[in-house]
């Protein structure tokens, strides 16, 4: 169901779209399965595109993606939600057109490029919706987000499908084919997306929890970078040893990556870097010593209470405060 696309189009996806889809999905999921309620499947009056929901994970949300196409580049900028009609198993057409008009007024350059949904794989039923959209855009795209959280997976769980006519069993049928995409962003968008992605708990928390959250984020980012570099390194070492056939294009890419690193090997840089590193180490050392001293203090107090000699007179006792 997912051979590679051969249309030659390059797709560029903006992070805003992914945020919108995930927000939509989370919202619907929470509304359908609020944490405080006991029954999971209540009939909720708001029908924001919820499909047949037997369990929260099977909730499918639907929406439309808009953007611009310039030449062979398709850039997906934004998205909005759509109403799904479970009876006819298709999207509500009038709603879509109304929204499309509104968006056209605000973003004159953007057209409907396709639609999105959530799930792990593209189904047959999705083809109906896809065909229905073909009269707005002759070759719509289907953006699929996999809401299952998989910590081992390092890539984004977003796939873009195109439809192509392939000959299967003698009949020309449209099927979904995988299309590769890149993430593209504008500076302003990056800042706001970053801000949203790192939302702290609403009560602010104490400075300690905020610092801890911040440092955890940095730590996981560095860990991921470290593991990727390690993979590359092992690959290169294996190539050097001769276990893997030499791939020149990969070597060129690696070399260009290394050359693009900031050329900061001057002595002054090393000096400053080491000095700052040592300063930080000294600070943590000081913190550790203070921590240790307070523990020691506790232990000494307890020992004194437990094993004190009886020679102390009652009046000279200092109360524990």
């Amino acid at each position, binding site marked *: 169901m997912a051979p590679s696309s051969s249309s030659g189009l390059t797709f560029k996806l903006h992070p805003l779209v992914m945020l919108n889809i995930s927000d939509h999905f989370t919202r619907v999921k929470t509304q359908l399965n609020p944490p405080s309620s006991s029954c999971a499947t209540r009939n909720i009056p708001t029908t924001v595109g919820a499909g047949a929901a037997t369990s929260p994970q099977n909730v499918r949300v639907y929406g439309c993606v808009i953007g611009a196409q310039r030449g062979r580049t398709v850039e997906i900028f934004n998205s909005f939600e759509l109403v799904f009609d479970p009876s006819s198993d298709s999207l509500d057409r009038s709603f879509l057109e109304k929204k499309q008009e509104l968006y056209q007024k605000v973003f004159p350059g953007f057209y409907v490029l396709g639609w999105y949904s959530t799930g792990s794989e593209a189904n047959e039923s999705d083809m109906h919706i896809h065909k229905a959209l073909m009269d707005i855009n002759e070759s719509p795209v289907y953006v699929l987000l996999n809401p299952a959280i998989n910590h081992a997976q390092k890539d984004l769980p977003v796939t873009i499908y195109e439809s192509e006519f392939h000959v299967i069993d003698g009949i020309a049928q449209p099927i979904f084919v995988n299309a590769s995409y890149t993430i593209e962003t504008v500076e302003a968008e990056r800042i706001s997306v970053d801000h949203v992605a790192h939302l702290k708990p609403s009560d602010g928390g104490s400075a300690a929890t905020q610092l801890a959250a911040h440092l955890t984020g940095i730590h996981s980012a560095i860990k991921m970078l470290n593991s990727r570099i390690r993979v590359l390194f092992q690959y290169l070492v294996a190539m050097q040893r001769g276990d893997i056939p030499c791939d020149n294009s990969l070597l060129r890419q690696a070399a260009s990556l290394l050359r693009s690193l900031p050329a900061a090997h001057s002595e002054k840089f090393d*000096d400053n870097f*080491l*000095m700052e*590193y*040592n300063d930080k*180490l*000294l600070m*943590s*050392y000081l913190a*550790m*010593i203070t*921590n*240790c001293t307070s*523990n*020691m203090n*506790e*232990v000494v107090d*307890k*020992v004194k*209470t*437990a*094993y*004190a000699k009886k020679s102390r007179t009652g009046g000279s*006792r200092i*109360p*524990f405060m």
Partner: protein
Amino acid sequence: MSSTENLITSIQGLSASSGDLSALHRILKGAEETLRADSDLQLSTLDQLDPSKHSLGYLYLLDVLTCGGPMSKEKASEVVLLIARFITSCDAEQIRLASDKFVSLCKGFKDRVLELEDPLRGVAPLLSAVRKVQVSTKRLTALHPDCLQLCLQAKCYKAGFSILSDDILEVDQPRDFYLYCYYGGMICIGQKKFQKALELLYNVVTAPMHSVNAIALEAYKKYVLVTLIHSGQFSVSLPKCASTAAQRHLKTWSIPYTEVGNCYNEGKISELQAVVVAHSSDFEKDNNLGLVKQAVSSLYKRNILRLTQKYLTLSLQDIANMVQLANAKEAEMHVLQMIQDGQIHALINQKDGMVRFLEDPEQYKTSEMIEVMDSVIQRTIMLSKNLIAMDESLSCDPLYLGKVGRERQRYDFGEDFDTVPQKFSM
């Protein structure tokens, strides 16, 4: 004898799993008396057993055979060889079931080795014995001081030093602890690691004791001398955390040392040497004469160090005059030695014989520093963890809880606190 043969077969049979081992242990404990009474028991019967698999049984038999009184030299060396082989090949798990027996066996081993006047033979087996008996690296066993004593006698300080690098947190017998710290201090002095020696001797001097014992006294004498060598200062009063018994009595028994210390504080070499000569018989009796001589030579170092705080540059002749050295050559040698040891930072200009004292050039921005810092931080984290564990175990101590409950009753904090029961029915 049939009972011995039965015993041997049961040892061979029951040495497999831990359930069998406890059964075997009970059998052995019961059979100990009969074994001792058995006069036919020979060392050759031990050949039927394998020390690594049947360690428990081997241990019992060996103990019965070798705990006897004085032996001839050949028998003693044979026994020593046997025990040494046993110790190196025995199974640690089985040994820990009968640790007292093992400890007494090793102590007997040590005595025989000392009788044979060949302490070097005993060092390696006792080192491995210590590791096998130790339940965890934080616990002090009765074998630690014995092992250190053998190392001292054999003058192999490096082997002893490897034991000293563990941090000891739990102690069974105070006497073991005193001996361990005292011997450990002596080993560190032998290795010229005066900082660590100072720590260990300090532990002995300030250890809680009801009455002064000889170990603490000897340790105090060495402690005084090592403080002089290492830090160049001497204070007559003991640290505040020393026990009252120690504070009252230690000084009265070590008068020559306090005199040396006081004289050192004055800083005059000739007077110090006079005092040393006057009390040299006392020092010789305590085997401390070498240490005293080291202390005297360290006085020069201390005086030169004092000079760095007063002067920026000085000529070698002036140094010699102020420190009462013979001539400029000797002064140069001393300064050179100190620069190499890292005690001072200076530049010697040989053309005009001037010495310029410099500041500590350590900028704390090298990568070696990072490693030092990292290891130090790790140590502090370990220490913190140990302290927290100690804190928790203290909080559950009934002695502590009883006293806390009693105190709480005095202060009426409204009706919030219910009193801690004073007696616990266990």
